[in-house]
């Protein structure tokens, strides 16, 4: 195998992007999902619908709107530029934001479902056993929601690997900076270098498959639990 250094770089950026955005999403969405799972607030329905919306538009179009927003002339990008941080388009940070926005529903929904069933009596028991709310979340809710987190992580991670429409738009396909593996494959195909495209595809799919296998196999070793 003789991967070009650009391809290696692209794989590395892809991995970094998928890991960072998945972790950030899990952290950020857990409180949101918890709120959605337990609130009686009427606005909940609105938020639930909003969360699913990023999926509805074609990625490139979503990417286009994001680009307009995060770029130097956009509301967000312009503001950041004016305070000296710099706009977010064509940067890795911009990629992470785009990727997170796009994977939002894959994380919020499974977590919300898991939290909805992991609550109840056992949480009350834990409180009587001196566990503070945060402690309860960590010691009871998290382990009982393991499958939800797994699903959220797998969907978000895999989607971050494969998605390229939006990333292409706000990242700009800059080798070494924002060119991810999916775009590199696409480029090889465009350049009719099918051999390179197949090779990179196989590496991406193969590595993902092994990673997923490991994750699911590890999950199997945990106790399958249903709250009786």
């Amino acid at each position, binding site marked *: 195998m003789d991967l070009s250094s650009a391809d290696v770089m692209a794989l590395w950026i892809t991995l970094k992007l998928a890991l960072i955005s998945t972790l950030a999403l899990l952290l950020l969405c857990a409180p949101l999902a918890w709120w959605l799972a337990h609130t009686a607030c009427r606005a909940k329905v609105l938020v639930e619908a909003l969360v699913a919306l990023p999926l509805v538009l074609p990625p*490139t179009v979503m990417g286009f709107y994001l680009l307009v927003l995060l770029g130097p002339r956009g509301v967000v990008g312009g503001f950041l530029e004016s305070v000296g941080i710099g706009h977010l*388009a*064509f940067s890795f940070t911009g990629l992470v934001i785009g990727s997170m926005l796009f994977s939002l529903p894959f994380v919020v929904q499974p977590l919300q479902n898991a939290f909805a069933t992991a609550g109840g009596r056992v949480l009350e028991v834990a409180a009587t056993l001196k566990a503070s709310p945060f402690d309860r979340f960590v010691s009871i809710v998290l382990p009982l929601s393991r499958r939800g987190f797994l699903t959220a992580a797998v969907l978000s991670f895999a989607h971050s690997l494969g998605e390229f429409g939006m990333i*292409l738009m706000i990242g700009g396909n800059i080798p070494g900076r924002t060119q991810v593996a999916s775009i590199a494959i696409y480029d090889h195909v*465009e350049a*009719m270098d099918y051999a390179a495209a197949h090779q990179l595809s196989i590496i991406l799919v193969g590595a993902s498959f092994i990673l997923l296998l490991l994750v699911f196999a590890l999950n199997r070793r945990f106790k399958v639990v249903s709250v009786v």
Partner: protein
Amino acid sequence: SELRVAVAANFLGTLNQLAPLYEAHSGQTLLISSGSTGRHYAQIRNGAPFDVFLSADVERPQLLVDEGLALADSRFTYARGVLVLWSDQQDLPLQGGEFLHSESLQHLALVNPRTAPYGAAGVEVMQQLGAYERLQAGHIAQAENLTQAMQYITSGTAQAGFLALSQVIETDGSIRGNTWLPDVDSYASLEQQAVVLSASPQLEAGQAFLYWLKSDQARAVIEAAGYGF
């Protein structure tokens, strides 16, 4: 130092051949971002960090110049595309566009004529042959770019399609598969223009690259890749 080049997807393969030559010539490496011209245009308007833009058409570079985003005097035609009707099935009667009237034509691959000049050119040719009316009703498979159009054909799903000569020409100059080259005057010129972007911090380097593209060394490669001027 690196020169950041945004290039139309159809020219990516050719540019990949040119890059090492230019590096040898100037010591400068090219950082190539390929993609659709429409997308590049949108990105450049929103702060994309490119120095040079090799477009697939005339319109976008002109627009960029008009908007002050590109240097007016840098704009020039670096290549002129050649339209082919192509199939990998040798037995199809492509010559003279005969097959376009055939009842056995199920699907014809074409790039989206609204967004890609090759698509518009293909439509022109079909109209002149009086075949467009019939084919338009469900026989045209529209790809978003030339590569996809070719994939429609190579997968056997579309029997033939309008492509760029650059896609089917071999390195030795021979043409792969079954080809018909419509008269270049029968469709609007497929000029592809380049500009240096005004936001670039290295305007001279950009201009130097575009200047090099006009050199014989570069032109030989571009011509061998199936483009005219």
